[in-house]
């Protein structure tokens, strides 16, 4: 890799914000806003996501879902941030947060259906204020900015969180969305999952910024850098950003620093480009165990509770995959039926022709 040739060093980055201790210098901390029940609920969310992810990988290997974007190790980012929100707040996931709707009560079967290429994977974003999964990188940043701006215009108290990766920060859509959000005082939290890889492209080939949070100043918004494996640090940073947002103070960029601990997606072979030893090392400090350690040190998590969280999540997944697999084959008419509220006559005619042909073929 080309050596960095920066001459004027950028301002030294503050250490990553942390709450959960490691016994070596960092003592355990506490955060505002979470009582014991809240802390345990957060744990259950992490376990639910972890279970979803691990089961999905298995289902993929069994041929029961298609390509799947693994998110193992980012449960802290997802759960930490969602728990800092109210029900009125919106969530804009990328493919990496495909299952984040679970934390809003979405059925696993819905998300599994999405990964099975079944129209039952469609949902109404307004139901749970979870936008559709965004596939083209960074293009949902302006959506989130617009929605948040709209909430402000309506005088509502809601805000929005938008999730994207380190690679996404290279796209024009990220830039334009962030700038709009700032200019429009949109109540938005820009949450960057900096896992230091965009498929095979390492952060150093993505940007020369010392930290992605350095981009915030260019939009005139605060930039915050947290340990993305520390669910409470993510929670706390989000909580503060949400506070600013609700107070009309505009967007915040949060860079949650982590490391990609799994292949980019099921189709990916990271052995071609990643040092597997590094991955193994990162996995040793993964976020769920870290949080469990914290809860146990605080005497909150018992074996029974941990077991129950896992068992409940597993049961939900078992039910979810069964429900997804029980879905009837979708009606081919759906090819035509949701694109337009008021479809062009030509399209209506083509629909009729195709359905006639399909029924003649006896398919």
């Amino acid at each position, binding site marked *: 890799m080309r050596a960095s040739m920066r001459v004027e060093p950028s301002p030294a980055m503050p250490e990553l914000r942390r709450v959960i201790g490691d016994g070596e210098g960092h003592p355990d901390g506490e955060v505002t806003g979470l009582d014991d029940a809240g802390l345990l609920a957060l744990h259950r969310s992490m376990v639910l996501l972890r279970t979803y992810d691990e089961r999905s990988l298995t289902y993929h290997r069994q041929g029961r879902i298609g390509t799947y974007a693994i998110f193992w190790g980012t449960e802290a980012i997802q759960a930490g941030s969602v728990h800092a929100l109210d029900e009125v707040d919106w969530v804009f996931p990328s493919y990496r947060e495909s299952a984040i709707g679970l934390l809003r009560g979405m059925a696993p079967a819905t998300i599994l259906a999405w990964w099975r290429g079944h129209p039952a994977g469609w949902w109404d*974003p307004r139901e749970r204020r979870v936008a559709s999964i965004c596939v083209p990188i960074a293009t949902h940043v302006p959506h989130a900015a617009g929605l948040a701006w709209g909430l402000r215009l309506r005088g509502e108290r809601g805000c929005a969180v938008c999730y994207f990766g380190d690679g996404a920060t290279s796209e024009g859509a990220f830039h334009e969305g962030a700038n*709009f959000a700032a200019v429009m005082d949109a109540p938005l939290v820009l949450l960057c999952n900096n896992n230091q890889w965009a498929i095979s492209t390492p952060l150093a080939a993505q940007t020369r910024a010392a930290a992605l949070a350095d981009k915030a100043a260019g939009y005139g918004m605060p930039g915050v850098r947290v340990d993305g494996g520390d669910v409470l640090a993510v929670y706390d940073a989000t909580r503060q950003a949400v506070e600013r947002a609700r107070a009309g103070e505009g967007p915040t960029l949060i860079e949650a620093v982590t490391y990609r601990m799994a292949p980019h997606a099921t189709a990916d072979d990271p052995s071609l480009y990643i040092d597997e030893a590094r991955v193994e090392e990162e996995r040793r400090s993964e976020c769920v165990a870290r949080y469990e350690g914290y809860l146990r040190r605080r005497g909150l998590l018992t074996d029974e509770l941990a077991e129950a969280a896992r068992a409940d999540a597993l049961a939900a997944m078992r039910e979810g995959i069964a429900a997804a697999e029980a879905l009837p084959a979708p009606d081919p008419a759906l090819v035509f039926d949701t694109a337009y509220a008021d479809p062009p006559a030509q399209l209506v005619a083509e629909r009729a022709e195709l359905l006639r042909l399909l029924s003649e073929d006896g398919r």
Partner: protein
Amino acid sequence: MKTLVEAVNDGLHTEMERDPSVMVMGEDVGILGGVFRATAGLRERFGSDRCVDTPLAEAGILGTAVGLAMAGFRPVCEMQYDAFSYPCLDQLICHVGRYRWRTGGAMEFPITVRMPYGGRVRAPELHDDSPEAYYVHTPGIKVAIPSTPADAKGLLAAAIRDADPVVVLEPKLIYRTARGEVPEGEHVVPLGSARVARQGTDVTVVAYGAMVAVAEAAAERADASVEVLDLRSLKPLDEGALLESVGKTGRAVVVAEAPRVAGFAAEVAAVLAEKAILDLRGPVVRVTGYDVPYPYWTIEDAYLPSPERVLAALDKVMAF
């Protein structure tokens, strides 16, 4: 009597008055009232939250409009010029045309994109494009192009009220030269209905936007009896009117200023080749711009379809 751009302005006032969820956004649409003054007066009347001067970022404009639509607004986005709309194509193709589908039809995305388009305005490069084919080809997107002030107001109203995203291309060449009666107050011209601009029996000239006047000028000078069909809406296309006219005349010339290859004129010809083959007594001739960048303005007249080029096509079709 109003000019075409005054009719657009009237339409925006009327629709914003009628529906508080309508908001206008774009570069310089607010305090300046738009570089063509299409949005003049809106900011004074409806405030800077409903007529918004945005940052200079077309993908950001359309992308935030998607979010505003999710929040219940009906955004009307201005692209300052045709060729400056290209940065928004990604949002248009990936999201504006797909988001309703993606929600299983649950959510509406009533976004309007309007822009001045077309050539012959004696401007530096990239102020003269006719990009309708990019828009029409995109699933989930409807496209309208007025040629008269009344239609400019009425089609815009239809676009704004439509539950689906609509792109309205306004022929800037005739922004101030096309004048006509425009109904006061609410006025809607439904999408998907063409207009017979001139009756004739021998040959149909299909056109839209500023090309309607070119077709009419040619018709005036032609030996044959020429019917001029102003499509007004490219998607949905008024296939009925098209087939009826060509069914009557048996001959067709399609005029469009966009580059020929895979332009919208090809779609019209293809519809005729599929559905009017028995009616056609001669080739369907396209009179269009060429597969080259829109030229420097000292030679733009050679590029653009002219009455002479339309007449040559009419001769060819009639002599066939």
